[in-house]
Every structure is written in structure tokens, then in C-alpha cells.
């Protein structure tokens, strides 16, 4: 879904519509990203959220009193539906090059701040390249759970999810509930929690050797 620069006006118009239809993804006050780049990103995210919503409307709803079976069945349908709809999706479809560059700058700035070490420590919390999973037979022992970072690929269910350091999260564009930032090693991924899918990623977004690749 890459756009030609001459389409900028259309993009801005679309972005403005997107903001109107989803006021909840308005950027946090601390986000220091060029407005046009931000609008571009929001447009891509909204395109995805529309797809997500379309699917949610077509499959049985899961209410707040669901059984484990209902939740699992719903997730499977969401996963298959989104994978089918996004067949052929590739890296950079959502994190377009200017968006990727802007987000890299935000992360680098945050890590270079006096609290940078605290941020790195949080990124390591639950990060599947740094944290292991307790064994069922003996929970005092653990095993690794690898996550293969691939667009439209399943996030390994056995693996933990990284924390998002609040101070960094508040400087990144705010996302709608359907989509979340997470770290896998140094990669920043976009993940749909309901479908358990990796939507896009920024390779080596964390420029810090303390975080394993």
C-alpha cells in the first residue's frame, strides 16, 4: 500500500477522515513525529483496523462471559480470516519507510535519555529472546520459546510478551485496542492480540546491545 509522493494531498485528506472516524487513535501529547508521517501511519493502522472489524462482524462475537472454547474458536477464526485477507502482506506495509525512520528516532532518543537503562530493562521484561517459560513438569526450570518474526505469521503462543516501557509507549503514536506494539529481541512488532498475528515489524528497532537480537 505504498503511495506516490504526488498523492500526498489525498493521503492527508484520507488521514483527516481517519482521525474523524477514530478519534481514539489521536496521538499522545508527547509524540514527536512529523504530522504528515503520523497521519500516514494512522491511515495504515486504520485500514488494518477496518479489516479487523469487518471480520469481527462476520464471526460469532465473544462476550465478556465467554468459555475457553469460545475464545479459542474465535481466535482461530480471526487468525485464519486475517491471514487470508492479508495474504501477500509484506514488511513495511504498515511501518512505511518514513514511519519506520520516525519510530527508530523516537526509540533511539528514549534510549539515549538519562532513563535509557530503565527503558532497556523494561524492554527485556517478557521479551521472548530474553525470558524463558516455566516447565510444566517442574516449574522451577524453564525452556526458551522462540518467536519467528514474519509478517502475517503467528506469534508463538508458548512465548511471553514483552512489556512496553510506559515512558516509551507514551512517545509512540497511540494505537487502537486491536493493535499493539511489542518487542521480540530488538525488533519492534505490531501485533493483533485477538488474532495473535504479527502484522508488521521494524527490524533492529532497539539500538542497544544489551537486548539480544
Amino acid at each position, binding site marked *: 500500500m505504498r503511495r506516490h509522493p504526488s498523492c500526498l494531498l489525498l493521503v492527508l485528506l484520507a488521514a483527516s477522515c481517519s482521525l474523524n472516524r477514530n478519534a481514539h487513535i489521536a496521538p*499522545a501529547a508527547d509524540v514527536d513525529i512529523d504530522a504528515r508521517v503520523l497521519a500516514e501511519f494512522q491511515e495504515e493502522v486504520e485500514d488494518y483496523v477496518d479489516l479487523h472489524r469487518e471480520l469481527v462482524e462476520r464471526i460469532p462475537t465473544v462476550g*465478556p462471559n465467554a468459555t475457553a472454547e469460545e475464545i479459542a474458536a474465535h481466535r482461530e477464526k480471526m487468525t485464519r480470516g486475517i491471514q487470508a485477507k492479508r495474504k501477500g502482506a509484506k514488511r513495511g506495509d504498515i511501518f512505511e519507510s518514513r514511519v519506520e525512520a520516525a519510530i527508530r528516532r523516537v526509540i533511539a532518543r528514549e534510549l539515549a535519555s538519562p532513563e535509557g537503562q530503565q527503558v532497556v530493562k523494561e524492554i527485556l521484561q517478557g521479551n521472548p529472546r530474553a*525470558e524463558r*517459560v516455566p516447565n*510444566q513438569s517442574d*516449574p522451577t526450570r524453564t525452556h526458551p520459546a522462540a518467536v519467528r518474526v514474519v509478517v502475517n505469521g503467528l506469534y508463538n503462543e508458548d512465548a511471553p510478551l514483552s512489556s512496553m516501557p510506559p515512558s516509551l509507549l507514551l512517545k509512540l503514536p497511540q494505537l487502537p485496542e486491536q493493535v499493539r506494539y511489542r518487542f521480540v529481541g530488538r525488533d519492534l512488532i505490531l501485533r493483533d492480540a485477538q488474532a495473535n498475528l504479527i502484522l508488521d515489524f521494524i527490524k533492529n528497532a532497539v539500538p542497544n546491545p544489551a537486548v539480544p537480537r
Partner: protein
Amino acid sequence: MERLASRFALSASFALAALPLCGAAQELTLPNRGQVRFAVIGDMGTASRAQREVAQQMVRFHAKFPFTFVITVGDNILGPETARDFKAKFEAPYADLLAAGIKFYASLGNHDNPEQRNYGPFSMDGQRYYTFSMEAPGGLRFFALDSNYMDAPQLAWLEKELSASGSEWKLAFFHHPLYSSGKTHGSSLDLRKTLEPLFTRYGVDVVFTGHDHFYERVKPQHAITYFVAGSAGSLRKGDYRKQPFSAVGFDRDYAFLLVEIDGAKLHFQAISRTGQTVDSGVIALAPAQPTATPGGSPLPLR
């Protein structure tokens, strides 16, 4: 008027590291007359024998201390989350408690898919973060947070709910500890920087967390008592490295926590898998005090 939560641990008994972990279940140290009785568990969803043994110990204590609900501090279902996993890692180990009508209120850990918010027995009402109250003189309100993803909407919600709550007792629970002596994880400093000002400003009394796989009680920090209760199904032996802020730690066996609120006192008893008391004591609610200076503006979120 907001109040400064100036609370003190009145007493605490602790045995811990040298405690022999054998023999029959010990006695209840809680007064067992309070209006609110509940249990705290965390990092439990492993489907392990240890998880089941802790759950059975909870059942034994429930017979003498009829707690009416359980709060979880996350990592409710570790590993895969198929329907079979929900049964093996939650429904089966806690079957006796569930059958007794005990309600579970969950918070999300870093091993939990956020879709657990729709799982009926977790009472999350479809929300990643939520609040509920219990009947107690002066009021008691719980705030369940999603510490994996502390974004702007959640922080705005938390501030709104804390400021609107007139409850005397305000208890928060979530996964990542703001204070922990864990060698593996330890304190979540970035999260602390974000949450502690809100907790202090709005008079949160006690915070329950997990993530580090042991039991720990932290000395009051800015008048708030913190617990780490992350060993109801996972354990990192030898991971507790006592920090200056730590009051008590226990990493030799699995454990859970019982809590009783009796008026202006919160009693607690941490119990090991074998029924040994590893910590107990009382936290008192201090009289309300104003925090806002005349014309003062709210503390920034961060």
C-alpha cells in the same frame, strides 16, 4: 479531599529462609472476623503438580478462613492457551474453589493473551483494566491494571477512577512489581516512575504484584505496602536477593497470600505449599490527610 495514605505495618511475624518446610498445615494467624476475606495468587497457570498442591492448600485454608474471592496478579495461563489449557491450568486446579462459588478477579501478565479478558471465570468484564468494590465500612475498591501495556488511555482511566473513588481502602493489583528483590526481574523502574505518583497522590494503600517467582513483602514505600506474590505455580529458588526496601522474602517453595480487612486494619498471611506461614502481619489505615496544596494542580502522570 484526597488523603495521604500514611500507613504502618503494625506487626509482622516472619520466619522464612530457615523455616523447615515440613509437617502438618499451620494455624491460621488471621483474626477471621473481618468484613472482607480474599486470597492472592500469581504466576500460577503452569498445570504443574506444584500449582495443584498450592490450590489444595488454599482449599484447606478456605475451610477455616472462608475467603470469598481470589485476585490474580497475572500469568494466569502460561504457554499455549487452547481450551484444554484453560482447563488444565485454571479450571482443574481451582475446581474445588470454583465449585464453592469463589470468584476470581484476574489481571494480565506477560504470558497472558489479552483475550483472557473475555474469559468469564476471570471476571474481567471484557476489559484489560477494571475496578470493582467490596462492601466494607468506609469502602474498599480494587484497581486491576494491565502493566504490560500502560498506555495513555489506561493512565487517564486510572487517574479518573482513583480520583473519583471515595473508598477508604484502595488496593491495586497487576503483574509487574514496582519493587522487587528478584535477581531475574527486580523492580520495574519505568513503570514505578509512571504509577507511583498516582498511587501516592490518590492514597492507594496496598499493591499486589507478581512476575518474580517468589513471595516478598516490601517495607512501606511512600506509605504504600507492596507485595510480590508470584509463586502460586512457578518458582525461582534462590532468586530473592534482599534489597534495602525489602521486609520479607521467601523463595524456597511455592506460596499464596490470604488477606482480611477488618475495619481500619488489613491483616495478611502468606502460606507455603506445605501450609507453613511464611509471613504475617497487619497494615493499618491512617486517618485521611489532605495532599493538595491550595490552588495546587494535579501531579503529572509521568
